[in-house]
């Protein structure tokens, strides 16, 4: 069951990545590129968690990828709000 759910999450994130890449190609707005990267990283995060199922001390290092993904989202929000962006 866990593998099934992680598989859904992984593949859905790849699909979302593809959509954001498409938006970036159409609009050239870096915001979408950063979101695409974020969801790609989330997808890799879930893939690795599903494959390795880390426990104990190694687990936080796997979740550093998730932190990277949300960092990219924060970067996208900053990109959208910096004064030169329009």
């Amino acid at each position: 069951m866990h593998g099934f759910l992680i598989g859904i999450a992984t593949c859905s994130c790849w699909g979302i990545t593809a959509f954001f890449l498409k938006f970036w190609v159409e609009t050239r707005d870096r915001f979408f590129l950063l979101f695409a990267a974020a969801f790609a990283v989330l997808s890799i995060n879930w893939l690795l968690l599903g494959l390795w199922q880390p426990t104990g001390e190694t687990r936080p290092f796997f979740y550093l990828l998730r932190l990277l993904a949300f960092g990219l989202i924060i970067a996208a929000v900053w990109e959208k709000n910096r004064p030169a962006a329009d």
Partner: protein
Amino acid sequence: MGSVIYALCALTSLACAALLLRGYARHGERLLLLAGVCFCGLALNNLLVFSDFVVVPDVDLSLYRNLAAAASVLLFLLGLIWHTGDRG
């Protein structure tokens, strides 16, 4: 360090959800609602990860956190498929 990572991820998800739901309240764009719900689900996933590993490590919450994550992103993907076309 792990608890800091999980908490930061949860807070970021919640902030994104708040911005998206605010956008939905302003514009009524359904994609924003679905995206907001997705990030609420991701926040729930991160909170459950925090709870699972830090708060109640004796209790296995893996099914619920994986369910929250899978349902959230699947819903967002379906929303992107449905709402990013010329539908009137």
